[in-house]
Each structure stands twice: as structure tokens, then as C-alpha cells.
């Protein structure tokens, strides 16, 4: 099959240069594999295939020529709802298991079982403990940490009946959840219950299944993900505004280059500590390098970027291409979104993939297992391996195709409130006055089915033009940063109202709020704003979008945004279109139940128009100028 034009792959010149080099070097990439897969399974694309039992596999014929029911009797609606439910459960499980790892780390700190990790933000530890109703007065740090860990252990179980951060949800929203039976009860409970419900012969009502999917997504957003965010801040520090750089140009030809890839800060923070070790820097220099350079990929990169200002090499679709530069010694990975192909790509160069988690091994990778007891020592081993690999680097194959772009990061809710003088008041005033017409969380992944970064970057541009403040997390951070949208000067691209506010505060019109679990920061902020106005989140002039999403986790995030009352535009349709019932529920029916729904729109201008129309309606309903 003839390859498509290079310009159709990505809007980024560093990506295009590396795709070209990959072809010359004979390296297969994600785009090659997508072409091999086309056309993809039509039944699966519509959600109409079921592999849940061995009476099957079954498929429903959407053209009405073949079977209308699976062997068990499930129709298109039930099969689609079951499949979607499992998709959402998988996404919630991923975020929440990540949260569990932070919780185990906090517990180990509290028990004095680790010297490698500690409490960097004690104020936040005490604040969160008090928030969830724990008595912190007179207790020492470890005792508070122990009590908080014990409380959050219960959030994962089913003893308490609701997750601890339910108190952050505005009262009106809690009422909605209660009315429709979607109040999240326990993180693991709600995920496991979905696996139960989707077993043959359990929940056979599409709407009931979708409502439980909403509940379990809320157990992620206001549970597992929120715990991951808050505990990461407590253990590694709450982010504050800082500057950094982004794109493949952050790699350095004369340095030992180490990339962290995955999601949790637990491993990446230790790698950061090791690359700053003077002894290891001396070793690197002895090996002929000018020093050791650390950069991030995907969400663990976002974690280091937010807290430490470590530069970002790229997002999801850049992970293979980073290796194609020939300048990367080691990619250290933990879990989630790490393409198994990286091992093969690394083998085409001198690079090594180092896996670190017992739950995420990669055949062909070097496995250096991290735990709370050995993390610092294991990080030293990783850096030593990178120095050794540097000596094997073939400089004639190195091509670093860009100069880095500046970006700002570190906008935690604490940082935003601090910048506003301690309360959300000034932000609300700007919203009421129509200077900032609303806020849009633009988040999510990359997907090789669509032009890399095109939809994300252009939707951001369209939103800020309309005086909509944009909040980014995850892979969209890099999409925005590379286009120069994460610097204060980008205020020039914003509408007059937003531009003036940004210039007064010295902030970009697009705020980086963290990794994908940090979408919990965005819903928490929505909760704060709604509480300040005495309204439901669904009444706020806010929206969300996942323009280039690919993962199960993104489906969960989209659903918890909607279930929290936030209108959400997806750039690609989830595999639900085979059921008219489920599709109608997603794109309109949920509006009646939860006060928000999904839209699917792949064109960034049209997506911005949908968002604008929603926000205009919300503003009008609040009695504000549209």
C-alpha cells in the first residue's frame, strides 16, 4: 500500500522528521501497524461483538441480515452496554491501581518502612486528613499519614458506603447522584461489580448498565484518581508554577539521555534523584558524556514536569519516535500506555527499555524491579545502565530534529488559588463579567487514526479565541506546549477578555494541570466554583474535550466528566454506535439524567462551536452576558 504523505501524519516537524528517519532506518511505527490493521473489525468498532463467554464469541449484524441476538439472547443494546461497561471499568481500574500504589507508598512512609520516600508537603497532608474528617490535632506527621492511609484503604473497599472525597461534590450534584443511584460507593467495589454485572445472565438492561458505568467512573474521578493526585502531592510536593521546555529537542546529543515513560511519580522521582547524584554525573563524564539529561514522556513526564519542571520529550505518538533519534540510552517505564513495540524499536538502536513494575513486564526489556525499600538503589542501577549504553551509542545515527519550545506548568488548584489571592473570587468575577466566558478541560491522548496533535492544538486555539480558559492534562499538554500555547505570550492568541486577564496575571491562556489522574484537579476546581456560586457543576459555563483519545482510561475520564455534570466532546466515537439506545443515551439522554452528555466531533472548529453553544446556554441560564 502506498504510504500517505508525511504531512498527513502530524502537525509537528519533529514527528515528521522522525517518521521519515524511521522509514530510512527500517523501523516499524504505530502508523505502519495501523495500516496493516485496516480495515478494522466492523463489529468491534460498533461494539457489537461479545467474547464474554464460551457459548460465543457472538456478533450482531448491524445490517439486519444475520443474527440479531447472541447465543445467550443478548441483543445489540445489551452487548454494547456490557462492552462499554467493561471498557470504563478497565480505565477506572488503571487509574485507581495507580492511586493504590501511592497509597501503599504513603502507608510505608507512615510505618517507617522506607527511607527513600517521605512527606514533602506536610501542610497538605494535614489539610487533606482534616478534610476527610480525621482528627489531626497534636498528632505527628507519621501518625497523620497512617490515619489518612487507613482512611483511603477503606475507600478502595466497601465498608464506608461512599468515597471520602464525596464532600468535595456540590450538594446539588450529590442529590442528582442519589436520585439516580450513581453515588460512588467504593473504588474496587464499583469496578468489580461491573465485571460481575457483565457476566452472562446478570445485568441485561442497557440503561442500568450505563448508569453503573457512570457510578464506577465517579469512583475513579472522585476516588482512585483523586487519591492518586492528592497523595502524589503529599509525597512529592504540590506543584507550583514554573517554566520548562518541550519537544524532541530537549534531548541532548552530548549527554546521557534518560526518558521516563508511564504514569506514576513513584519511579520517575527516584530516577530524577539519581540523575542529580554527583557520583553518577562524574561517571557519565568519565564515559565521555557532558552530563546526564532526564526528560519525560506521557504522564509520568507530566508528574515530573508539574512538580520539578523536568522537560517533556513528547506525548503518546512520540514515544517510538523519541527512540528513533538514536540519542536515547534508556527509557524507564512503569505502566500504562507504554507500547510493547518500544522494545523492538529500542533494539534497532543502542537503547534499552527498563521495566520497573512487577505488574508491567515487557518481553525483551531489562527488568529492574522497584519497591519502596529499594527504589533509590534501583534508580542508581538504571542510571548506571544508561551510562554504559551511552558508550555504545553510534553518533552517526543521532538526529535530534528540533529546538525546544518554552512552556509554563505547575498549575495545581492550590497554585491557581494562591495566584488569585487565596480564593476563587477573582476568577468568578472574571467569569461573571464575561472576560473569561468559561473554562474547557481539553485532555486525553493521541490516536494514529487522526493527524497527530492537529485536533488538540486547534481546538485549544479555537477555545481561547472565544475567551474560554483552557485547562490541559495528559498528552494534550505536549500538543499544546509544542505549539507555543503554554506560555504567557500565547495570550495574544486569545480573545480580548481572556487575553487581558492572562496579561494581568502573567499566565498563559492554557493552564497545565498535570497528568491524566490529575483530571481530578479539574473536577475538584469545578466543585469549588459551583459551591462558591451555590449551583450544580452542570450549571457552570464549563466543558471538556478529549479530541484525540484512544485509551480505556480516557473513556472513564469522559464518563466521569459527564456524570459530574460537564458536557464532553470526544474527537473519536467510542465503540457504542451499534446500539441506538446506548448512543442516544450518550449524546442526549444523559442530559435529562445527569445534566450533561457527550458529543462526537472530529473537526476542531465544529467541536469549539458545540462547546461555545453549551457555554453560552449555561451563561444565559445563570443570568450572565452570553
Amino acid at each position: 500500500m502506498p504510504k500517505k504523505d508525511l504531512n498527513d501524519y502530524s502537525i509537528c516537524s519533529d514527528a515528521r522528521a522522525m517518521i521519515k528517519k524511521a522509514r530510512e532506518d527500517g523501523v516499524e511505527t504505530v502508523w505502519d501497524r495501523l495500516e496493516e490493521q485496516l480495515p478494522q473489525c466492523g463489529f468491534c468498532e460498533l461494539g457489537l461483538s461479545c467474547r464474554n463467554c464460551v457459548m460465543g464469541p457472538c456478533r450482531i449484524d448491524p445490517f439486519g441480515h444475520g443474527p440479531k441476538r447472541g447465543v445467550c439472547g443478548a441483543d445489540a443494546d445489551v452487548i454494547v452496554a456490557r462492552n462499554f461497561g467493561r471498557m470504563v471499568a478497565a480505565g477506572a481500574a488503571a487509574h485507581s491501581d495507580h492511586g493504590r500504589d501511592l497509597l501503599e507508598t504513603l502507608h510505608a512512609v507512615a510505618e517507617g518502612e522506607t527511607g527513600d520516600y517521605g512527606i514533602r508537603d506536610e501542610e497538605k497532608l494535614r489539610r487533606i486528613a482534616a478534610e476527610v474528617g480525621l482528627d489531626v490535632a497534636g498528632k505527628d506527621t507519621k501518625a497523620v499519614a497512617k490515619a489518612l492511609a487507613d482512611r483511603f484503604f477503606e475507600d478502595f473497599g466497601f465498608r464506608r458506603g461512599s468515597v471520602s472525597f464525596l464532600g468535595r461534590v456540590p450538594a446539588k450534584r450529590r442529590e442528582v447522584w442519589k436520585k439516580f443511584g450513581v453515588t460512588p460507593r467504593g473504588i474496587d467495589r464499583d469496578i468489580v461489580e461491573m465485571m460481575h454485572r457483565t457476566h452472562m445472565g446478570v445485568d441485561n438492561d442497557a440503561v442500568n448498565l450505563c448508569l453503573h458505568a457512570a457510578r464506577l467512573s465517579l469512583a475513579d474521578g472522585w476516588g482512585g484518581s483523586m487519591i492518586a493526585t492528592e497523595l502524589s502531592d503529599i509525597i512529592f510536593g504540590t506543584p507550583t508554577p514554573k517554566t520548562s521546555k518541550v519537544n524532541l529537542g530537549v534531548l541532548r546529543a552530548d549527554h546521557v539521555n534518560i526518558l521516563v515513560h508511564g504514569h506514576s511519580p513513584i519511579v520517575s522521582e527516584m530516577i530524577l534523584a539519581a540523575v542529580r547524584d554527583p557520583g553518577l554525573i562524574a561517571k557519565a563524564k568519565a564515559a565521555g558524556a557532558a552530563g546526564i539529561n532526564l526528560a519525560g514522556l506521557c504522564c509520568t513526564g507530566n508528574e515530573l514536569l508539574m512538580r520539578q519542571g523536568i522537560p517533556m520529550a513528547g506525548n503518546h505518538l512520540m514515544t517510538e519516535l523519541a527512540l528513533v533519534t538514536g540519542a536515547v540510552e534508556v527509557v524507564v517505564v512503569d505502566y500504562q500506555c507504554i507500547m510493547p513495540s518500544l522494545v523492538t524499536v529500542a533494539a534497532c538502536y543502542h537503547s534499552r527499555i527498563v521495566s520497573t513494575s512487577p505488574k508491567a513486564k515487557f518481553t525483551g526489556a531489562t527488568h529492574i524491579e522497584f519497591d519502596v525499600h529499594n527504589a533509590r538503589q534501583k534508580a542508581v542501577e538504571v542510571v548506571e545502565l544508561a551510562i554504559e549504553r551511552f558508550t555504545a551509542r553510534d553518533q552517526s545515527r543521532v538526529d535530534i530534529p528540533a529546538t525546544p519550545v518554552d512552556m509554563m506548568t505547575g498549575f495545581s488548584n492550590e497554585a491557581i488559588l494562591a495566584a488569585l489571592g487565596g480564593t476563587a473570587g477573582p476568577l468568578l468575577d472574571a467569569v461573571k463579567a464575561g472576560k473569561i466566558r468559561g473554562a474547557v478541560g481539553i485532555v486525553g491522548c493521541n490516536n494514529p487514526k487522526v493527524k497527530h496533535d492537529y485536533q488538540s492544538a486547534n481546538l485549544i486555539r479555537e477555545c481561547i479565541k472565544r475567551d474560554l480558559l483552557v485547562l490541559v492534562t495528559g498528552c494534550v499538554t505536549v500538543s499544546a506546549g509544542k505549539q507555543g500555547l503554554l506560555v504567557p505570550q500565547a495570550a495574544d492568541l486569545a480573545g480580548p477578555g481572556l487575553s487581558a486577564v492572562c496579561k494581568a496575571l502573567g499566565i498563559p491562556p492554557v493552564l497545565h494541570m498535570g497528568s491524566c489522574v490529575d483530571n481530578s484537579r479539574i473536577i475538584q476546581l469545578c466543585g469549588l466554583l459551583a459551591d462558591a456560586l451555590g449551583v450544580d457543576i452542570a450549571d457552570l459555563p464549563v466543558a471538556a474535550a478529549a479530541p484525540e483519545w484512544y485509551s480505556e482510561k480516557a473513556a472513564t475520564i469522559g464518563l466521569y466528566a459527564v456524570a459530574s455534570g460537564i458536557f464532553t466532546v470526544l474527537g473519536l466515537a467510542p465503540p457504542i454506535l451499534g446500539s441506538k439506545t446506548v448512543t442516544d443515551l450518550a449524546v442526549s439522554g444523559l442530559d435529562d439524567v445527569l445534566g450533561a452528555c457527550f458529543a462526537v466531533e472530529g473537526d476542531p472548529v465544529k467541536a469549539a462551536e458545540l462547546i461555545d453553544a453549551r457555554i453560552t446556554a449555561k451563561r444565559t441560564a445563570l443570568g450572565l452576558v452570553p
Partner: protein
Amino acid sequence: MLKKTVIVRPELCVGCMQCMIRCAQAHSRSKILASAIREDILAKPRIHIGVGPEHKPFPNKCRHCEPAPCQEACMPWAIRSDIAEGLKIVDPARCIGCGMCAMACPYYVIRFYRDKDAPERPAVAVKCDGCHERVAAGGVPACVEACKTGALTFEDVNLYLKEGTNRLANAAYGVRA
């Protein structure tokens, strides 16, 4: 017979029915799966998977015979040879749904459904049209594009048979090719 045609290798078929769904999509009005399944008159597949012994799948489609028994049996001359060279294509506007073609067809590859191009009729003959529009545009038939296992390929029939002859020649001398 056309030089290039859909060659079926039933031993490679895994019964996934991708050819059927992509065939129906290719014959819909929108040609986009997500909207094709919402059209008033749903397109239907023109390739079918028969079930053999031990549930072995057998892809079955029109051979575009010449002379074609279906065409000879068709009273209103609805099965036309003048739409695309070498293909026997049903003209829904002429079909009266009498079923004579299906009775004459030795391969059971004709079905009867409502058709978007003759919406006033309760049912007309629906069969493979060789994806002549796709082929004219430089593509391959939708069923072939969908097939992941090589059970359906679009090949020069004489070249395919020549390869077969060579395999047979090897086998005759005890060599497995």
C-alpha cells in the same frame, strides 16, 4: 470472465464475517459504517459464509458466470452485462423480485431484500456487483480489503491457476511447495 477476480480459498477462512459487514457498508448510501447502520433501507451483504462440517466456514459469492443461468432466467432483463465488463449486475429498477434468478443459480448467492435504489419494491434480488465502482477507482472489492487471512484475494485468475499448476508439478515429483 474478468482477468482479475475474487479468488476464494475456503481453507483460509476463519468465519469472522468481516467480508459481509464491509460488503454491506460498501453498498450503503453513506459508505461510512456508523451512519450506514442508521439508513432507512439497510444495505445487505452480497457475500455469505456457509457452515460446513465441524462448523467450517465457507465464503460464498457470485461467480459472474458467462453465460449466466440467472441472467438467462431473468424475464425483465434486470441482470445486466452492460454496466461493467465481465460482471452480472442486478438493476433494482428492473427487478420484479420473481425469484427466477435464485432458482436458476447453482451457487445460492442471490438474496431478496428491499434496496435503496428501488425503495418502492418490497424486495429485489441482491447479489455481488464485483464492487465495480471501487475497482474502477483503482481499489479492490470490499470483501477482499476486509479479509485478514487471505481467504479472499483479488487476483489475475490465470496467474493464480499457473501457480497452482506449479504446486501440482512439485507435488507430482514428491516436493511440497
